């Protein structure tokens, strides 16, 4: 599927270091997000999972604001 999508994107130069920094932060946000969402679905206490997810989001969003544009935070 991915090569199919690659035909429809702009080929831009990027730093591999920056990419892997973001991928690492993304893994953190996805993992903490899955735990948070699972606890919400099973209606367990979500305070700790919610705080961890909030921290992961904050790290990701600060990086986006620094290396991208604040408007990128709008999705």
């Amino acid at each position, binding site marked *: *599927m991915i090569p*199919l*999508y*690659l*035909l*429809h*994107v*702009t*080929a*831009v130069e*990027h730093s591999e270091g*920056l*990419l892997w920094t*973001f*991928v690492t*932060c*993304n893994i953190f*946000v*996805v993992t903490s*997000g899955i735990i*948070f*969402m699972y606890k*919400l*679905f099973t*209606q367990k206490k979500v305070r700790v999972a919610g705080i961890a*997810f909030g921290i992961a*989001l904050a790290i*990701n*969003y600060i*990086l*986006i604001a620094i290396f*991208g544009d604040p*408007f*990128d*935070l*709008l*999705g």
Partner: protein
Amino acid sequence: MKLLKYYRLWVIAFLLKFIGSAWDASYHFKYLFEEYSIPHIVNTLGFALGGVLLFQEWRRSQYMDKFSRNLITIGYALFLIGIPLDFTYHIAYGIDLTTWSPTHFIYYIATAIMIFGVWRGYYLYTRDIKPAWKSMHTWFAMFLLECLMFPNMQQENGAISYDQFINGKSIASQEILDLISDPASQIFGGIPEFVYPIYSVLMVTLLTVLIIRICRDFTIPVTAAVLYILLRFVGKAIFAAVGYPTSYVPITLILIPLVFFLFKKTSWLAGLTGSVAYFLVLFAIHKFDILITPPIELWEIIPVAIIGALVPVVNSLVRSQQAIKKDKQPA
């Protein structure tokens, strides 16, 4: 009544998201980058209004049960996860010119969960009243339909943009035109053309059957589809007036819930008739150049008919399994 006011505010929130996302889809057929991202700001206003309403429920549970509130929160969390993933996707591959990209699908799924959560809350808190088309059920059904149909905007905007492009009348900006090396594929987002009718029939039939099953009402899916088509025409008129790219409005979608309404049951025959009617009218519009539609081929009627007939069958099987389990439970 405070309860209705609360859910009316949710309708406004989703309407802002609808306007922002439709504007964004049209925008990117003309411009690549945006300086102030106005369509995204409109979308975010809807997201923020919903966030305030959700926060209110977390502070003091008043208008919905806790599971519905948690479902909406899951939708919000998933949407917020989608933003950094989409950003990374853009770093790796650049700006994607398709609604069908994997990270964009996170947004659609997240929004669908939000709508479902709000609708569930409304459904449970108004359960003493039989769901009717004159209630907010029609709005929530319409928002869910819009969310499911959103990826098709690539084909529906693309059909008109492609026609303008090959006739040398493109209104796209130079930076978009510079990127186009394979117009037939790029403008339609890299998706094979058979996906459009098959995806439409699968989603609309599934949504129709589920609404009828849950709400026990045949009119809500019809009025939701009418409302959706009406709002798409309003959007098209505004975009045409301000020189933005317009889209084909999928008018034939209405035939699917309409046939279920006329049959008054969710049988395989109703599903088959509705999906075949949807496809044949769309094909006629395309074949006789009545309107510019996404490209389709006649053979696609086969998978369309099979899916249209299968969805009600699967729905009835799931119902039977649940009934069997219930019967086996000790009294």
